[in-house]
């Protein structure tokens, strides 16, 4: 009884504190910029982390609601919010488009979510330096559109571009589909402004003695909130060429990509699909492994009659049944007489682009590639932004799908691919493609899908698959993330990723945010886990 009274008191106290906080925020940045209604508190309790979809299946739509959501219009307003939240000892959580897939914006300790989408201005375009300065709440298509109007491109085209912001890209070290030519977002950014935990502004830029830019980029809002950034831009390309090649194996295809990269050619697009992903790519007209909702089609090809019969009883049942036997599925897929599809693209001015493609063609064909024309490339191009919207069919069927993007040197590439395959195969259907190539290595993008009848078992399976996949990645000597970031999803593996060097990241946190107010609980493992 006594306990109940205390908790009621705490609840009342909490409500009073929240009301004081909300009023302070409204006074500071305006009533219209502060929301605490139920719709906002539900909407901002999750991002696109697939685990949250499993929570939804068990009717937990609002596991971690924020106290309030604010919509600042400029840096000064962000500064005020951070200072007020600090005075009230509540966390602040940055929020862009909400397209993150690692739980990086989930307010697990409550607090104030800062939605940056009203900070959407292009501040300046510099035609001499070829740079753009923009506020970080700007959505991808808006930034790219304004650059296109001036004859430029940023060259950053993540599959989530329609629903992601510059701030989100910087927070998670995003990569676009054309990163092989233009680089990842950390290669593009040359300076930024951020509000630190104490409300101070930190401005970074080229030429300063210490490279704070590369400290803040990728810190997922745990060190400060980036309010604007200056990025490299490029003249709009005059032409785009694609060419597809078939290779007898993933290994042969990856070897061919390496030869192109180490010959100093820089295609804008490199995508090598493993056999199942190649099959799905050819069936789903371009959207590749993201289109797991269409996974039934290749499975039907694989199993013919049985799946067709199941399918007549409902596609969801067929899918679930197929995913219930992942080991068998993966073995059958391994035995498929399907080659690996490589799509390579070049863009730039007319003269050099054709010439570069010709040079690449010689290398690819001498590495065993069989020319498949430009059709697959243009099909991919048509569906290149569809991938983020097609997974709900699987979740509706009671299954899950998720993706893991790892990064490794060329010498560790095949080992990483094989180790992850072997680790995940007993538990989930698995496919992969290789993209984002560099002279010294490449990223592997794994997609896996699994099924269990009830939500609790599904969540356990989901965790098991991730644990096995990440452990295999670390064993193979690869990095656990290439461009999705860490968030909540991978933070407990950060100790294995960085080893004792994790102390450096903790020191950044302790030095810049000693009271742990900035997006707490993300990126770094809890101190107890660390010990």
């Amino acid at each position, binding site marked *: 009884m006594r306990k109940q009274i205390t908790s009621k008191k705490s609840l009342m106290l909490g409500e009073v504190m929240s009301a004081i906080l909300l009023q302070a925020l409204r006074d500071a940045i305006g009533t219209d910029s502060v929301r605490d209604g139920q719709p906002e508190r539900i909407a901002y309790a999750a991002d696109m982390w697939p685990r949250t979809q499993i929570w939804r299946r068990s009717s937990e739509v609002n596991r971690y609601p924020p106290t309030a959501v604010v919509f600042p219009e400029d840096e000064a307003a962000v500064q005020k919010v951070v200072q007020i939240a600090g005075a009230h000892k509540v966390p602040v959580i940055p929020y862009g488009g909400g397209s993150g897939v690692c739980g990086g914006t989930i307010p697990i300790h409550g607090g104030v979510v800062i939605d940056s989408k009203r900070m959407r201005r292009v501040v300046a375009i510099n035609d001499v330096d070829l740079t753009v300065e923009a506020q970080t709440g700007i959505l991808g298509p808006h930034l790219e559109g304004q650059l296109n109007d001036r004859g430029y491109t940023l060259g950053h085209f993540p599959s989530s571009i329609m629903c992601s912001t510059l701030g989100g890209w910087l927070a998670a070290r995003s990569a676009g589909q054309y990163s092989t030519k233009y680089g990842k977002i950390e290669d593009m950014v040359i300076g930024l402004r951020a509000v630190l935990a104490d409300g101070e502004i930190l401005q970074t830029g080229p030429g300063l003695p210490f490279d704070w830019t590369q400290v803040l980029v990728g810190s997922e809002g745990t060190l400060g909130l980036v309010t604007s950034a200056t990025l490299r831009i490029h003249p709009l390309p005059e032409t785009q060429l694609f060419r597809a090649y078939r290779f007898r194996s993933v290994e042969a295809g990856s070897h061919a990509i390496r030869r192109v990269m180490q010959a100093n050619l820089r295609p804008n697009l490199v995508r090598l699909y493993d056999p199942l992903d190649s099959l799905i790519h050819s069936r789903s007209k371009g959207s590749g492994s993201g289109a797991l909702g269409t996974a039934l089609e290749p499975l039907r090809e694989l199993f013919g009659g049985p799946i067709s019969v199941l399918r007549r009883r409902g596609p969801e049942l067929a899918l679930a049944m197929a995913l219930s036997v992942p080991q068998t599925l993966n073995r059958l897929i391994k035995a498929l007489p399907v080659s690996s599809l490589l799509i390579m693209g070049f863009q730039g001015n007319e003269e050099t682009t054709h010439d570069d493609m010709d040079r690449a063609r010689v290398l690819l064909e001498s590495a065993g590639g069989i020319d498949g024309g430009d059709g697959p490339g243009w099909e991919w191009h048509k569906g290149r932004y569809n991938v983020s919207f097609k997974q709900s069919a699987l979740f509706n069927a009671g299954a899950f799908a998720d993706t893991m993007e790892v990064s490794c*040197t060329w010498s560790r590439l095949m080992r990483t691919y094989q180790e992850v395959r072997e680790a995940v195969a007993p538990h989930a259907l698995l496919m992969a493609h290789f993209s984002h190539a560099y002279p010294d290595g490449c990223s592997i993008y794994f997609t896996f899908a699994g099924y269990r009848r009830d939500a609790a078992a599904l969540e356990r399976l989901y965790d098991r698959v991730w644990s096995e996949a990440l452990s295999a990645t670390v064993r193979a000597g690869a990095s656990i993330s290439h461009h999705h970031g860490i968030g909540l999803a991978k933070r407990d593996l950060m100790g294995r990723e960085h080893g004792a060097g994790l102390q450096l990241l903790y020191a950044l946190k302790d030095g810049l945010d000693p009271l742990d107010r900035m997006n707490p609980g993300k990126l770094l493992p809890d101190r107890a886990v660390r010990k």
Partner: protein
Amino acid sequence: MSQDYTLSQPKATTIQEALDEALGPQRASVGQVFEANSVDEVHLLVQTAHLYDAPVRVGTTPIADVLTLSLSPLTAIRELDSVSGLVTVESGCTIASLNSALNNDGLRLSPGYFSDPKRTLSEALSSGEGGPLIVSMGGILPDGMQFHTPLAPRRATGSNPDVMLATTQHRFAVVVWITLRVDFTPTSPAPVAFKGRGKDIVTTTRELLIAGVHALSVHLLKGSRGQMTVTWEAQNDRDLQRISTAFQGPGFTTVDAIDPIPPGGRPKRSLWTEIIRAAGGTAKSGLWVGPLDMHGGWIRTTTPNPLDDDPHLERVRMALDPQQTLQGECP
């Protein structure tokens, strides 16, 4: 719960006894220079210093009340990954020795990133050289723990820890080895160079780079009377042709290509506006800019690296090393 008391309760009663126990009799003493023969010895020295509150500086000059750590004997090439184009080398190795070893395997350090070939990698990195070539680093933290940053071409696993080590002169960790990207020695055309008025040279170079001319290296050197030389290492005959055509005008003359070894000083990443200003301004001859890309390049500056003036950096340092075991390089 069990606890390891070996670190927190050392058996030795003085730091000299502890150093003798860890490294051998009279190998290391406060106020003297310790020549580390292995990474393990660096680890033992720093760990002991940390336990006994003794400061450590990296260098070759003895300093009273300080353990000076010389990395000069650490010169080994630990791994040459010719598949990935990566070399892992200890930080006492000189640029010249490294390049010589790479050349034997058909590889080279990308030109223009390192100045004096006699300098060690440790010295070069401390002044900010080689930054874009760094893929991973191995080090010893202030408490003596060994670590290395993840080895991958790109990562999305938080802040880039390499930048905390590259220019901070062993304040956050003693850097004992570095993995660098290396070039495959090109079969491309020989370098070409052109001389002209500084502003014209910069403008034409910028236009070529923005137009997508591929170059393995480009750099500028300012001469006397506002003249400037640009040296291009073109990637192929097509690009060589484009470069030569652009510099055929009356304001330019073809000259002998110079070795792309920049002068000392700190490389400062600069945008075109700053480079154009420097090229046309009154900067004395010897101004070096390079390597260049379509967004500018590195100007060599003699301005010292004022790390001590950065309060944020100092806060981070105090969080990592409250005892201030690591005190950077010898002055």
